[in-house]
């Protein structure tokens, strides 16, 4: 048995929840008639859970089946969370590591940029970038090749909202990893194996790919897990303001936005379920990160 599983409740629990959420997302991707259940149907709005056989978890204020919405929301929320976190971790670590090994003025300027960006509250940048999705005419100004590749048509935004939200969230979250990785690399540069690699005439690229990045690997995983949860919560906040993935792409955050009006009709489940999905996923990601941390600490 893998040592991770041995008496590690956190890991098992985290894996179970993540498997459940990913399963929902995959189900939403392959299931053909899910779009019927997620179409607005005001005649069946605000059904409570466990009262209607066709809607086991009830419906929201627009009459969309909550179970189906949760599944298709999983697709949007999870992909944003994971891709934004992975992108931010990779970019941030490379930035910090390259700054550290370059040194001199380049390093100073690179880190000053990070400091400046860190003092802008990320909500400002998030609001700016997300405004692109909220204004559909902006998509027409993009190059045709790009819109064709992303599947943008007059009827659908295709992958464009994903790209924008992922880039936006990643571009405000990579800063902390850049700082940490620079500090770590500066530490590693004192180590003997690093000095030996320099003495043997290794180039910057070789040092980066052979010696530094593998040494930072443990940190990457932790950062990526923490950032995944953060990105998930950020996306839900943006969607809640009406700026996230947009109206055509469901996510747990936009479900919460709709739930605001359902609440007026006493439909609390439309608010509880997506929020619970966000919280549980973030929790699972944290637990996975922590159990990985305790594994590498042993």
């Amino acid at each position, binding site marked *: 048995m893998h040592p991770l599983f041995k008496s590690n409740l956190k890991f098992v629990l985290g894996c179970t929840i993540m498997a459940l959420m990913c399963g929902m997302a995959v189900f939403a991707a392959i299931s053909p008639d899910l779009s019927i259940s997620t179409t607005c149907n005001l005649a069946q709005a605000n059904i409570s859970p466990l009262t209607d056989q066709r809607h086991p978890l009830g419906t929201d204020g627009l009459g969309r089946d909550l179970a189906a919405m949760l599944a298709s929301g999983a697709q949007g929320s999870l992909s944003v969370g994971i891709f934004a976190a992975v992108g931010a971790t990779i970019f941030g670590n490379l930035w910090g590591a390259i700054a550290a090994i370059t040194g001199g003025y380049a390093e100073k300027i690179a880190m*000053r*940029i990070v*400091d*400046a960006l*860190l*003092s*802008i*509250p*990320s*909500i*400002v*940048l*998030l*609001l*700016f970038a997300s*405004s*692109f999705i*909220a*204004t559909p*005419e*902006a998509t027409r*100004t993009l190059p045709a090749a790009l819109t064709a590749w992303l599947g943008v048509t007059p009827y659908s935004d295709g992958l464009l909202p994903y790209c924008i939200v992922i880039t936006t969230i990643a571009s405000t979250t990579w800063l902390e990893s850049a700082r940490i990785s620079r500090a770590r690399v500066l530490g590693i540069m004192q180590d003997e194996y690093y000095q030996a690699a320099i003495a043997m005439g290794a180039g910057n690229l070789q040092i980066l790919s052979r010696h530094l990045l593998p040494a930072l690997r443990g940190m990457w995983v932790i950062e990526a897990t923490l950032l995944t*949860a953060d990105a998930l*919560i950020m996306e*839900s*906040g943006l969607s*809640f*303001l009406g700026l996230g993935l947009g109206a055509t792409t469901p996510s747990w955050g936009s479900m*919460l936005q709709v*739930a*605001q009006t359902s*609440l007026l009709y006493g439909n*609390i489940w439309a*608010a*509880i379920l997506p*929020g619970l999905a*966000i*919280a*549980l*996923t*973030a*929790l699972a990601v*944290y*637990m996975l990160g922590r159990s990985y941390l305790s594994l590498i600490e042993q």
Partner: protein
Amino acid sequence: MQVSIGERLWQAIPTLLIVSCLTFFLLRALPGDPIDIMLGNAQKDLAPQALDQVKKDLGLDRSAPEQYFLWLASWIQPQSDNAGLGFSYKDGRPVKQVILERLPLTVGLVALSLIGAFTLGILLGLLPPLLTAMRLGLLAESIQGALTFLYASPNFWLAFLYIWYCANTGLATPLPLIGDLADWQMAPLVVPALLLGIRRAAKIALFIGSQMKDEMLKPYYVQAMAKGLSPAQILTRHVLKNCMLPIIQIAGLSLPALIGGSVLIETIFALPGMGRLLIESVFGRNYPVVISLTVLYTSMVIVSNLAADIVNTAADPRLRA
């Protein structure tokens, strides 16, 4: 120490310049024209000359870099009237006045939530190590789990549940009116502030928990135990002090997150604060208000980082030398 504060304030100037420049040009790169949004369909009925006049009044007839330098110059030139930061496109009032109206609410909200997060975080963070020391490990674990769950839940979702709870139990939600805020009456802001700070509190608590776990392995802890001190005494008198430095750092760094959260909390509770103003102004392409708000937010963050450093220096004798 004196030198480093002065140096830090000096360094803040290029940061603010970069931030304002970035904001200014990003904002103008956004799709949508402030005049379109302002006039809507009425634009068609307007004579071209009148339209040009509107553009000229707003300073939009100049090129973007020119506008930016004019905006910068308005900082340096002493202004006799309120025109220092320009005028809001929406209602033509001075930006300074528009922002000052909204300032007390957001400052109160963020300050209350920072204080709340700090106190709650320390209190809740002490609980699991204390319970562990009292050999109630299971209870400590479950509190730790609850804290992680709180940290993982979006705070606007918790605000939802709170509103629903209030509506169902007939509990009046005491929400502030603009009149109250002019007098800096903060009592109605307590619940929104707590909801805003709860994730931070959980983060601080979790952090203290893991810090203390490490500290409790050190010889001084064992020695204090052997001396017969109660776990509560050891934790508050000895261990907590050793964990304080990184916590002060976290508290100082939490301002950007709290400001971001305040936008959501203000939206949910319909509070007329700077966060709402920011969203309205970004949607309305109200350039002068957005750029002033961004610079204000950034200066708040810079000042809070500096304050955290000063407190840290005061708390850590090693840094004073």
